[in-house]
C-alpha cells in the first residue's frame, strides 16, 4: 500500500488536490482488487492442476477433451457454475443461507491483507501480522457453522459441527508452532520474520535449532492442512457419510464461493508456512533475488506457496481420511504436546546465553519446566504407543 501511495504522489498535483484519507482508501481498494483478482483466478488453475495430479496418481490422464491437454476444462466448468441457478431449498433460513458463504470467503480472503510478497508489495504490514492471520481465520469457522445450520439439513449440520470442532482443535497446535517462529524472530510482523531469514537457504527458520524447527514446520503444516478441511482431514464433507457436508444444499454461485474459499485458504496457509519457515519472498540463493534490477520476491513467495499447495494435493490423493476420534487424538494428544515441548525447549535455547538483560532465574525455570515436560512427553508417547498397539491387536483379532 505504501508503494501505491508513492505511485499516486507521482501524479502531478495529486498530493495537493486529493485528501490523505481518500488516497489511503483508494490505495486500499486497489490493493484489495489486486488480491481479489489473484484469489478468484487462482482456483481455475488449481482445479486443473488438482484434477491432472489426481489423474496421474491414479494412472489416468485427467481432463483431456476441452482444449489442448484439457487446459480449457476448468474455464468451461467455471462458466457453467456461474450460470447455474442457485437453488434455495424451501426450508432454509434465507438470510443466513446467503450470508454464510460470504463470511467464509471474507475470512479466507482477509488473510491476503498481510501476506508479504516483497518488502514493498504488501497490502498492510501489521505489527501483529502473524496473529492477525490466525484471528481472521475464525470468521470462516463461524461462516461454516452458519452454513450448516441455515441449510436445515442433518448432513449439513453434522458437517458444520465436525468442521468447527476440527478447526478449533487444530488452531491450537498451529498457533503453538507459530509461536516458536515468533520467539526466534522476536516479532509478529511478517515483514520482520522474512527479514530475519534473508540471505539464502541456510538462513531459513526451517533449519534453525535443527531438527526442532523441522518438527515445528511439520506440526504447522499438518494443523493448517486440517484447518483447510482437506483430505486426510475432510470428514466435514466426507461424501461417503455426509453427502457433501456443510455445503450439501448449496448450488451454483454459492457453491462456487465455498470452493473459492477452500482454495484461497490452501494458498494462504501454504504462503504462511512459506513465510514462517521457508524464507517467504527471500530467494534461496541471494543472487536470484533480483532479475534485471527487478525484485522478484513475489515470484519466490508464490512458487514456495504453490509447492506446498502441491503437497496438499499430493496428500489428498495418497492418504485415506481419518476417523473423528483419530482426528481429535492427533490434534490434542500428538500435535499439541509436541508443539508445547518445542516452545519450552526453543525458549530455553533462546534465553540460555542471555543473562545480562533477562531475569536471572527465568532460564532455570525454563530448563526445569523443559525437563518436566520431557518426562511427561515420554510417558505420553509410551501410553500413546501402547494405545496404538492395542488398537492394532483388536483390529487383527
Amino acid at each position, binding site marked *: 500500500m505504501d508503494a501505491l501511495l508513492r505511485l499516486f504522489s507521482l501524479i502531478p498535483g495529486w498530493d495537493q488536490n486529493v485528501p490523505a484519507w481518500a488516497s489511503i482508501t483508494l490505495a486500499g481498494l486497489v490493493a484489495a482488487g489486486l488480491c481479489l483478482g489473484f484469489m478468484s483466478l487462482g482456483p481455475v488453475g488449481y482445479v486443473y492442476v488438482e484434477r491432472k495430479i489426481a489423474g496421474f496418481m491414479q494412472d489416468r490422464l485427467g481432463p483431456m477433451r476441452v482444449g489442448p491437454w484439457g487446459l480449457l476444462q476448468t474455464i468451461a466448468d467455471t462458466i457453467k457454475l456461474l450460470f447455474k441457478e442457485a437453488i434455495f431449498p424451501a426450508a432454509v433460513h434465507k438470510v443466513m443461507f446467503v450470508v454464510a458463504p460470504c463470511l467464509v470467503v471474507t475470512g479466507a480472503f482477509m488473510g491476503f491483507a498481510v501476506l508479504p510478497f516483497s518488502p514493498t508489495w504488501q497490502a498492510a504490514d501489521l505489527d501483529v501480522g502473524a496473529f492477525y492471520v490466525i*484471528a481472521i481465520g475464525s470468521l470462516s469457522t463461524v461462516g461454516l457453522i452458519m452454513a450448516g445450520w441455515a441449510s436445515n439439513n442433518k448432513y449439513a449440520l453434522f458437517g458444520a459441527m465436525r468442521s468447527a470442532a476440527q478447526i478449533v482443535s487444530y488452531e491450537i497446535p498451529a498457533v503453538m508452532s507459530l509461536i516458536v517462529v515468533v520467539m526466534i524472530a522476536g516479532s509478529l510482523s511478517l515483514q520482520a520474520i522474512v527479514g530475519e531469514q534473508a540471505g539464502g537457504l541456510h538462513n531459513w527458520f526451517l533449519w534453525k535449532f535443527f531438527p526442532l524447527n523441522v518438527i515445528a514446520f511439520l506440526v504447522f503444516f499438518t494443523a493448517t492442512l486440517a484447518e483447510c478441511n482437506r483430505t486426510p482431514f475432510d470428514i466435514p464433507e466426507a461424501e461417503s457419510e455426509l453427502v457433501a457436508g456443510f455445503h450439501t444444499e448449496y448450488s451454483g454461485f454459492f457453491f462456487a464461493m465455498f470452493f473459492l474459499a477452500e482454495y484461497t485458504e490452501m494458498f494462504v496457509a501454504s504462503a504462511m508456512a512459506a513465510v514462517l519457515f521457508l524464507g517467504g519472498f527471500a530467494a534461496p540463493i541471494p543472487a536470484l533475488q533480483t532479475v534485471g534490477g527487478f525484485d522478484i520476491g513475489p515470484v519466490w513467495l508464490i512458487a514456495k506457496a504453490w509447492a506446498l499447495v502441491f503437497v496438499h494435493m499430493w496428500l489428498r490423493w495418497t492418504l485415506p481420511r481419518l476417523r473423528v476420534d483419530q482426528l481429535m487424538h492427533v490434534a490434542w494428544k500428538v500435535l499439541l504436546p509436541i508443539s508445547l515441548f518445542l516452545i519450552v525447549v526453543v525458549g530455553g535455547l533462546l534465553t540460555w546465553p542471555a543473562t545480562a538483560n533477562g531475569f536471572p532465574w527465568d532460564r532455570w525455570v525454563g530448563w526445569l519446566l523443559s525437563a518436566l515436560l520431557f518426562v511427561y512427553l515420554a510417558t505420553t508417547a509410551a501410553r500413546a504407543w501402547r494405545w496404538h498397539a492395542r488398537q492394532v491387536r483388536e483390529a487383527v483379532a
Partner: protein
Amino acid sequence: MTASAFVFWVLATIVLGSAAVVVLSRSLINSAFALLATFAGVAGFYVLLGADFLAAVQFLVYVGGILILLVFGVMLTHRIQDLDLRAEARQLVPGLFVAAGVFALLTAVATRTPWAQGPGRELSATTADIGRAFLGKYLLPFEAASILLLVALIGAALIVRKREDA
C-alpha cells in the same frame, strides 16, 4: 466531521444495533450470530484506538472461541433440527432492575473519570510493551490468572470425563 469520528459513529451503530438484536431477538440463533457483528465492532474500536494486539485478541478469543462455543451450546442443548429456537423472557422485572443498575454504574464511572483530553498519542506497535508488562511488572497477577484458568480447564475435563466405574 473528521474521518476517525465518522468511523467511530459507523462502528458505534454496528455495535449497538447488533447488540440490540442480541437482546431483543426472539430467536436464540439470531442472537448468537448477531454477536458476531458486536464482537467485530468492538475489535474495530480497538483498531481505531491504535490497540492492534488487543484487536486481534478480541477477534481470536471472542469470535473464534466464545461465539463458536455459544453456537455449539445452542445447537447441542436444543432440538438442533428446529429452525425456530425461541428465547424466553421470564424474569423481565428483575432483569430490568439489574440492567438499570449496571447502566447507572457505568454512566457514573464514564462521567466522573477524568478522561485524558487533547491530541491522541502517536500510533505505535503495542505488542512488545504488553509482553514486557505481563512478564515484568504484572508477572504475579498474570501467572495467578493462568493458574486459575488451568484449574478451570482441569476441572471441566474432570467433570465431563467418562467414569470407569459408572
